[in-house]
């Protein structure tokens, strides 16, 4: 498992620079928001939590098609499926690698970009916490979407269509935590719901992803 994780991490870091792309996309999106809605500080600070969440979500989504497709093309996915390691663990590790290379940098970059969007000071803490809790769910749900569309030639757009509705609950609760935190409201209920969605997705979805992957590898 550790070997697989380090292999995936090394591939992400070295080959083709998939590592920085999500982050760069997040940065560009955040820069484009003030350019499109106007630079008024009051407006920006009220939409900042939502924009940061949406940006993180889209950046996650963009990097999903590399998650399994490359291994599918060169056949290493078939090898992994016949390896002694259960496929459920393989997809969990893949999701973890995706989170380390995409989700974690996004979480770390979010407060910096929050400055650009005039995020209120109490919001910084909650944006980071909500993203930290929510991005693992995004990676795991995304792995399911990637597993569904792995056999398709041009599955990227279809995968977005499939994954986005599945992202909605996470987005709603995550952005709600960030928004309430930024204006100093009580955040306990959405925070617990977000954590619950994350925990349940991490626990259950790898089984669905592995089952779907088996069908695709058949």
């Amino acid at each position: 498992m550790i070997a697989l994780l380090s292999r995936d991490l090394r591939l992400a870091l070295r080959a083709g620079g998939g590592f920085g792309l999500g982050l760069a996309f997040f940065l560009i999106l955040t820069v484009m928001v003030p350019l499109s809605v106007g630079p008024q500080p009051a407006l920006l600070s009220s939409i900042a939590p939502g924009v940061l969440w949406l940006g993180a979500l889209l950046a996650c989504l963009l990097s999903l098609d590399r998650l399994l497709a490359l291994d599918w093309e060169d056949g290493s996915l078939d090898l992994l499926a016949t390896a002694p390691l259960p496929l459920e663990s393989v997809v969990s590790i893949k999701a973890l690698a995706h989170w380390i290379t995409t989700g974690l940098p996004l979480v770390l970059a979010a407060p910096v970009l929050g400055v650009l969007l005039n995020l209120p000071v109490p919001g910084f803490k909650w944006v980071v916490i909500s993203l930290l809790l929510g991005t693992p769910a995004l990676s795991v749900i995304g792995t399911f979407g990637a597993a569904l569309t792995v056999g398709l030639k041009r599955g990227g757009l279809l995968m977005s269509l499939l994954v986005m509705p599945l992202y909605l609950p996470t987005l709603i609760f995550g952005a709600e935590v960030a928004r309430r935190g930024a204006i100093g409201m009580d955040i306990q209920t959405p925070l617990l719901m977000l954590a619950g969605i994350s925990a349940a997705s991490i626990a259950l979805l790898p089984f669905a992803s592995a089952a779907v992957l088996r069908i695709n590898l058949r």
Partner: protein
Amino acid sequence: MSIWEYANPKKFITSTERVLPALWAASAVCIGVGLIWGFFFTGDEARQGSTVKIIYLHVPAAMLAINAWVMMLATSLVWLVRRHHVSALAARAAAPVGMVMTLIALVTGAIWGQPMWGTWWVWDPRLTSFLILFLFYLGYIALWEAIEDPDTAADLTSFLCLVGSVFALLSRYAVNFWNQGLHQGASIFRAEAVIGTDTEEKVSNIFFYPLLLCIVGFVLLFVALVFYRTGTEIRARRIKALIARERVEA
């Protein structure tokens, strides 16, 4: 004699074709009588005037939009467990019907909402979750269309339907929490309304009976459409198999 007999495609087609004319006729009569009764022989509502009459389209469509997904969930499960092709094809056949029902509910709701709430659209929980349901239908149908191998497509869409159901339900409660709404709560088949203890929020009997007729008509129409479309899917697959066989022999 068990229901699994109808999992045989031939048996399914011959027996559904026998009942289909009756289904079409019954649904046409129910919807026709219900709509005419509702439109011309019931009075206007005290506060809403004649706009209330769109209820005869809005409510049945909305009920079917949700129940079509539940039916797809059930047939997907049957496919995954018992591998009956008819079941998978029925799920595929029901999806566009359910999507259209969702669209009807959204559009009639907007037309109803404009004079009543003064707006075509608000981000009310019920409205939002219907829009989300629409997106789920869209993704489900797109996945069916994208995959060539029929068995793989049936398997993958079944899994999408299962996982999607959980997330659709989650979204339903998430948006409930996210925004308070203008839309009234369930007011037709609530227990208090049916036994008659609650007269405040209940739909009046004058509107209820034609509405019930419309709901029955829509359900019959849905069943007829699903039978018909499933038969078409079975035939389309048979043609594909015949063409493939001819190609091999040639």
